[in-house]
């Protein structure tokens, strides 16, 4: 277990309202640099809203929020430059080749051509896809696409990478490999902010927060949470919290 000290995300009383509906109700949490932070909650609990605010897509209604040291009200452009993002929908271009996808995303993050080439080579080698660099993405299996999408999300060395249900629809073996990649990324100092529906994945996180109806109901390490609720697995923690309502 590494020792995390520096805060990379600080949210203080984050509120987001849509008309009368409160999607995020006074969220308070900190994410440490290099941590794998699990952001859990049932569908409609407000996870996606919070992520969109942290990514600089939406403005919060109120609250003090800093991401990578930048303010979400005034410095959204700087935030965007320092984060990576991979959505639950698959997010590379199917009609572009693997290399072209790397080149495009590298380009929009203003990476230099040499760096793009180097990173492309590095990730292709790591994923054992060196021969497929010029293959059109649509003919690559889903599991690999997912890993490619993740690689591309971190190719510009962001400070934080947001993963919104990254392993949806992927087989267990690939999921395991995917989590190996997440560990490696966190080990290299990139903070990982991940949402998931798989409770076994929640066990892999350093800390998890569980949202219920727009509020954070629990936030701790998986071990502490299980102890607190006196249960065996994160799955049971989750169900206990959701039932409370």
């Amino acid at each position, binding site marked *: 277990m590494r020792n995390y000290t520096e805060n990379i995300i600080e949210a203080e009383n984050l509120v987001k309202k849509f008309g009368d509906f409160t999607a995020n109700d006074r969220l308070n949490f900190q994410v440490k640099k290099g941590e794998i932070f699990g952001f859990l909650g049932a569908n409609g609990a407000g996870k996606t809203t919070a992520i969109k605010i942290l*990514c*600089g*897509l*939406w*403005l919060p209604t109120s609250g003090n929020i800093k991401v990578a040291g930048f303010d979400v009200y005034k410095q959204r*452009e700087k935030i*965007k*430059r320092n*984060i990576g*993002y*991979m*959505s*639950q*929908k*698959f*997010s*590379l*271009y*199917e*009609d*572009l080749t693997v290399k*072209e996808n790397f*080149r*495009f*995303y*590298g*380009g*929009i*993050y*203003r990476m230099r051509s040499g760096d793009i080439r180097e990173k492309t080579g590095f990730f292709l080698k790591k994923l054992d896809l060196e021969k497929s660099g010029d293959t*059109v993405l649509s003919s690559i299996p889903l599991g690999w696409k997912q890993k490619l999408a993740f690689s591309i999300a971190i190719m510009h060395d962001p400070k934080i990478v*947001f993963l919104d249900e990254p392993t949806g629809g992927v087989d267990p073996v690939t999921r395991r490999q995917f989590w190996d990649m997440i560990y490696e990324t966190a080990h290299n100092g990139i903070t990982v902010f991940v949402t998931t529906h798989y409770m076994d994945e929640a066990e892999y996180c350093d800390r998890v927060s569980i949202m219920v109806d727009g509020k954070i109901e629990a936030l701790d390490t998986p071990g502490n949470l299980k102890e607190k609720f006196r249960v065996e697995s994160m799955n049971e923690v989750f169900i206990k919290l959701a039932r409370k309502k």
Partner: protein
Amino acid sequence: MKRFWSFVIKEFYHIFRDRKTLLILFGLPVTLILIFGYVIRSEIKDANIAIYDPSKDEITKDISNKLLASDYFNLVENVQNIQEIDDIFKKGVVREIIVFESDFARKLEQNGEASIQLIADASDANTANLVVNYTRAIIFDYMNELNRNNPNPLQILAEPRMVYNEEMKGAYMFVPGTMALILMLVSALMTSISIVREKEMGTMEVLLVSPLKPAQIILGKVTPYVTLSLINAVTIILLGYFVFGVPIHGSVFLLLAECMLFILLALSLGLLISTLTSSQRAAMFISLFSLMLPTILLSGFIFPVENMPEILQWLSVIVPPKYFIIIIKDIMLKGVGMSFVWKETLVLIGMTTIFILLSIRKFKIRLD
């Protein structure tokens, strides 16, 4: 700039990798212009005519024979009474009735001038025009022969009169009309589809999270289509000019500038549509029904606005291609300059501004 170019290059990959897109972009304009061109310019052969010849002298007989000796005309009826003309047209067989003056030869000799009236059924404006032109050419030929050794040239006046559509509007509009249609299709339809595709695929989310500004995303999206639309506009003008002899009397620069303006208008419409929907299919249907149909039906491209019921005439006021077609026709066919088309140009600029403002508003609402 690097971001922007990465984006544009990516867009070009999308376009050149998709056969259907390519076909719409390049196959369609050429096909459409050739189809419209040939349908409208079809040669006439054995057009049915009737002749009313009250004078029945040497010259009128000569002219009649000369007309019928060509392959172009086929005599259906010798009209006995001028009152019959309307009934003959109503039967729908006869395309043109040639009406000689009474005492034709005598008048020609005494006054040096006699006239022939060419009455054509202009409900089919295009054929009417062709038939009348052919007839005039033959009469003109005959006149030249008569005058060859004559010191006092004689004048045979062939006066065309169109019935049912007297002003002949709607003919020879195929180049401006097709141009409007194609620019609408390429710019609006393709842009809206390509933006909506990003939404559907989930890549739009990634683009929005990236440091790209919304304006950069939009500019990157439309730049390739502006380029391709301009290429298309030029292709159509060239095809019209070299294949169909449609003249360009006015300034080529002004013509291209107006094309550019219309492309921008179509793009802003495409943008607006893309903010309204998030499925490619819906984008396509909205484009087809709200853009293509009015362009074909209400712009005056095929059916003259003047002949429409009043309600449709009012509707046509808000159809952008209507103004574009007027501008292009004026520049190409009449050779006029900005001083004649500034009103229409202003309307187009106004519409473009409104559409752009609307779509920016919509885009922002989606973001916040």
